[in-house]
């Protein structure tokens, strides 16, 4: 009798992912693991805010002004209420406000990057593949926009959008306007990188082959070039996410972003810095540390991703 060896079962998808280069590199990068842990915890906190947060800071009717300026962990002298991270000047629980504020920050960040990415990748592909006048026009617009700081462009877009929205919708629109403003100020990076990669790819043999067998330019761009230029896009998207979150905080800090009754992290920091001298440090420190942790972790993840995806560094 001869034993026919049983061929080993093909590794499961999860196992393949676990053993992939990317994951191998992840498992050997403690910084990346630590930052992704922080990011996951913060995102979970934001997503589950309505379940976790003891108060709803966006519902002004439930606030008690007498709770204002309660220090963290101590009972308020007048109402006797206790707040984990204290309260701000309006009596809002800082912990709840951070959780809810992070929802705005993350939502604005993700959506803005998505918008910038879709816009930038599409225009970059077009510019790189079609060339000629299309390329000139797209890339010159990009160059012009690059000469202005992104935050200025965002403020400009925000101002115009605010001017044309009717007042009764302004509060609801504020978030979408923020997304639009940050997204439109950030597409250039994507477009430039994708155009560059497209220029390299489009002269390769597999593209010429695809062209010879009669594929339409649209299908070539979408099916053949796009998958091959996605790596750098992923890296830029991660770093842009951190930048978009900071841009949102900056706009709100300047008072042009999220409405004061729906504070995001930036609004909280703006409120908090007024009370730095008078000793109510918790209004500033906690949201600031949260913003720092969020932006720093995402940035570190982006850095790691860039190194891991770079074939030259392997």
């Amino acid at each position, binding site marked *: 009798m001869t034993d026919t060896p049983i061929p080993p079962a093909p590794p499961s998808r999860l196992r393949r992912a676990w053993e992939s280069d990317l994951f191998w590199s992840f498992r050997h990068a403690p910084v990346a693991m630590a930052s992704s842990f922080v990011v996951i915890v913060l995102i979970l906190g934001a997503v589950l805010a309505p379940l976790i947060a003891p108060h709803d800071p966006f519902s002004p*009717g439930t*606030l008690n002004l007498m709770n204002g300026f309660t220090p963290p962990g101590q009972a308020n002298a007048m109402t006797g209420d206790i707040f984990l991270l204290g309260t701000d000047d309006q009596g809002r629980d800082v912990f709840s406000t951070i959780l809810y504020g992070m929802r705005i920050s993350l939502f604005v960040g993700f959506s803005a990057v998505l918008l910038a990415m879709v816009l930038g990748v599409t225009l970059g592909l077009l510019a790189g593949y079609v060339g000629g006048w299309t390329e000139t026009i797209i890339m010159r617009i990009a160059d012009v926009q690059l000469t202005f700081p992104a935050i200025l462009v965002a403020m400009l877009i925000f101002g115009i959008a605010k001017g044309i929205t009717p007042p009764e919708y302004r509060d609801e629109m504020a978030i979408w306007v923020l997304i639009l403003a940050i997204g439109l100020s950030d597409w250039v990076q994507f477009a430039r990188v994708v155009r560059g990669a497209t220029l390299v790819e489009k002269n390769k043999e597999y593209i010429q082959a695809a062209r010879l067998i009669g594929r339409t330019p649209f299908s070539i761009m979408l099916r053949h070039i796009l998958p091959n230029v996605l790596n750098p896009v992923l890296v830029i998207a991660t770093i842009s996410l951190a930048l978009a979150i900071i841009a949102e905080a900056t706009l709100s800090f300047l008072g042009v972003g999220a409405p004061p009754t729906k504070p995001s992290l930036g609004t909280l920091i703006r409120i908090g810095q007024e009370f730095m*001298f008078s000793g109510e440090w918790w209004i500033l420190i906690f949201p600031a540390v949260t913003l720092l942790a969020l932006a720093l972790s995402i940035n570190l993840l982006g850095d790691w991703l860039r190194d891991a995806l770079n074939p030259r560094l392997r």
Partner: protein
Amino acid sequence: MKTTAFLAAALLAGTAIGASAETLRWARAGDSLTLDPHAQNEGPTHTLSHQMYEPLIIRDMTGEFEPALATDWAPSEDDPNVWVFNLRQGVTFHDGADFTAEDVVFSINRAKSENSNMKELLNSIVEVRAVDDHTVEFVTDGPNPILPSNLTNLFMMDKDWAEANDSVDVQEVEAGEKTFASSNSNGTGPYKLVSREPDVKTVLTLNEDYWGRDEFPLDVTEIVYTPIQNAATRVAALLSGEVDFIQDVPVQDINRVAESDGLVVKTAPQNRTIFFGMNMGADDIENDNVEGENPLADARVRRAMNLAINRDAIKQVVMRGQSEPAGIIAPPFVNGWTEEMDQTSTDIEAGKALMEEAGYGDGFSIQLDCPNDRYVNDEAICQSVVGMLAQIGVNVNLDAKPKAQHFPLITNGETDFYMLGWGVPTYDSEYIFNFLVHTRGSDRGSWNGTGYSNPEIDEKIVSLASETDLDKRDATIQEIWDEVQEETLYLPIHHQVLNWGMSEKVGTEVSPEDDPKFKFFTMN
């Protein structure tokens, strides 16, 4: 060696200048809105104008009358409808022109002209005539016993200068107009304009030819005025010695400033009340979610909103004790104020019941316009009121912006719910009625953003100017207040308290008008 000698010389020169010139670096939250002295009746605008321009009569730092460009004044012996002013002689404008009676006639007529924001103070004046170069007669429509107190913020311009520079007409601020007089100045005052960049920096220097050089301390020889909107930055500037004087120490930082070496905080009640106005006159309003009707037109809704506001909480938390809760929009300084009217009460349940009765049991939503660089903690007060009104079902969208954008909304009637603070330089209720209660028209009611109009009340307001029987006048004032309170025309919040922070070397009292006049300041 050469360098050392040079440095020593420079140091010597430095000390020499330091001994003779005292620069006062002054900061407050907002800037003057315009240099045109008749274009905006607004506190910080007048404060800057007071350094360069002068009225006939001025209030000193304690609020007392003092002769300025007029040396004395009295009702005419022949005609009870005439006030006679004797003008100061030998006064020149900054450009060297003599100050004479024709300048007074010109300035008063200018302040009465269409675009002027000072009309309400002068509408009892029928004619101003120059008797000779230094005597002026004001003819009023019936005897006006309180006319002099209306003139303390009415600045005198040079007729020839205005004519030569195309500035005879008052700047139309609401339309965004810019004129020569709105960015240049030529007054008789103790300081001359050196440079000005609106909202950034204004520099003034001592007028060497000032008529009062021997009468006033005039220790300050140069003024550098920088508006710093951010409260923390403003305090930091004072703590670090970057500025010598700030007019609005944030309430949370009073202790910190007072305990710092070399700094003092001086506190005094201000002649100013903070309140909210509501557009009750329109059939339908823009900034709400109710179609076809105006919830604010219903007095029950306004009363409910008034009951929802917890003024004691605002005083304790937002103002940290630095305010006096108000039940009336007149500060206690003002003739016509009574303690009885100044009582406040909070009753959420009664407020809800009133809302139900008015048919708004489910509430409604509306936009609140609020300044963020004018009054003490203005935006924070608005925010806390948002929370309080939410408890009776009024959902408020808060739009806070700098005063330069906020005030035109009120004077143009483009806001339905707004914050305003009103100081009373005349110390009399008539001033409040003229600006805030009288029907909005060509010569009264310019700051009445409520749309309130009651011909009977208007008549009573107009009668105040020429009522010589003071008891009868006070009775009419009381009648008008009764109506204002009954209608809940405004939602009073509090009477402001002033906290001036300054370096020890600065010597001054706190004027109830929040109106530093630097010629009275001493510097040690």
